[in-house]
């Protein structure tokens, strides 16, 4: 559910980047931060370990602009991908409006992709949510790896029913990053006023 601030005439949405460790969630946010012009973004907050692994979350507020008199804003979060940070990961999903699932194309991360999706389903269930109830976009990242698995193979383990829109990405070069964010934003906005 979006947060509406009538007094300041703001509508805020929470979008969470989920996925296994080192799949590129923080890289997505860093690219976005680097490319969005000043005045349309706030400060990026990263709660990371010394070796730059996400410890709690990254946070980046974006300002879409004014729509029908309402300032429309997106709060982007990443979760820590490493398996043992599940308690923190669960907290970040509270009140989520849309999800980008960042999958890794490396052959040795196929199982990690599947486990992360299963973990996301379990954590959403704790808030009474199902993946099917939320806008979810699948980003298959690291397409530049020489041994990258076919997109369909990655998709088969995280989204066997082919339910989510899929974007190929090389987040380190920004490829597919905006496309993914734009799609999840579009899906989230499409639910405004629809009673969802």
């Amino acid at each position, binding site marked *: 559910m979006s947060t509406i601030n*009538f007094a300041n005439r703001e509508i805020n949405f929470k979008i969470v980047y989920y996925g296994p460790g080192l799949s590129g969630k923080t890289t997505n946010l860093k690219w976005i931060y680097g490319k969005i012009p000043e005045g349309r973004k706030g400060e990026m907050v990263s709660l990371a370990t010394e070796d730059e692994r996400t410890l709690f979350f990254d*946070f980046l507020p974006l300002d879409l602009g004014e729509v029908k008199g309402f300032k429309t804003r997106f709060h982007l979060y990443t979760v820590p991908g490493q398996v043992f940070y599940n308690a923190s990961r669960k907290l970040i999903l509270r009140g989520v409006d849309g999800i980008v699932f960042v999958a890794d194309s490396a052959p040795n991360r196929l199982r990690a992709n599947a486990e992360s999706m299963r973990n996301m389903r379990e954590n959403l269930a704790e808030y009474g949510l199902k993946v099917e109830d939320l806008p979810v976009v699948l980003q298959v990242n690291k397409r530049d790896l020489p041994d990258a698995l076919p997109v369909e193979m990655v998709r088969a383990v995280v989204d066997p029913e082919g339910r989510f829109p899929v974007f190929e990405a090389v987040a380190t070069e920004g490829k597919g990053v*905006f496309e993914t964010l*734009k799609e999840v934003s579009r899906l989230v906005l499409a639910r405004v*006023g629809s009673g969802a």
Partner: protein
Amino acid sequence: MVEPSLVLYGGPYERAMDVLEETLRETGARYALFIDRKGFVLAHKEALWAPKPPPLDSLATLVAGNAAATQALAKLLGEARFQEVVHQGERMGLYVDEAGEHALLVLVFDENAPLGKVKLYGKRAAEALARLAAEALANPPKLNLDTQYREEAKALLDELFGN
């Protein structure tokens, strides 16, 4: 449980602003924020004499994250909740208290504000804000946004992220 959308409008919003203003006056704190548990600012007030505050989005997000972690810790230890949280540095301090199930009160204060007063009036304010939040949740205002909103928002997405 799906997180309900806490929307303050009209009377409840004005009363929340009054509570924040009074709390600033009584405690001598610099900034008072009423935020939801997702980390969004519902209302905020700054003391007239206070310097420019830090980015409120970042403040609210970190406080909400911290509160969520604190609550999870309480549960691990078999407690229903740990209520207020106080952080104090050499010059600045932070007081956070639950304002009901879905919101938090945040007070940012400096060394001139007595901690006892901050806690006393912070607790009172949190209770008043909890009642307002409950009232707002029981009577959510209707948001008349239609397809036009979605179309206009889509055009802005094109502008920001490219076609």
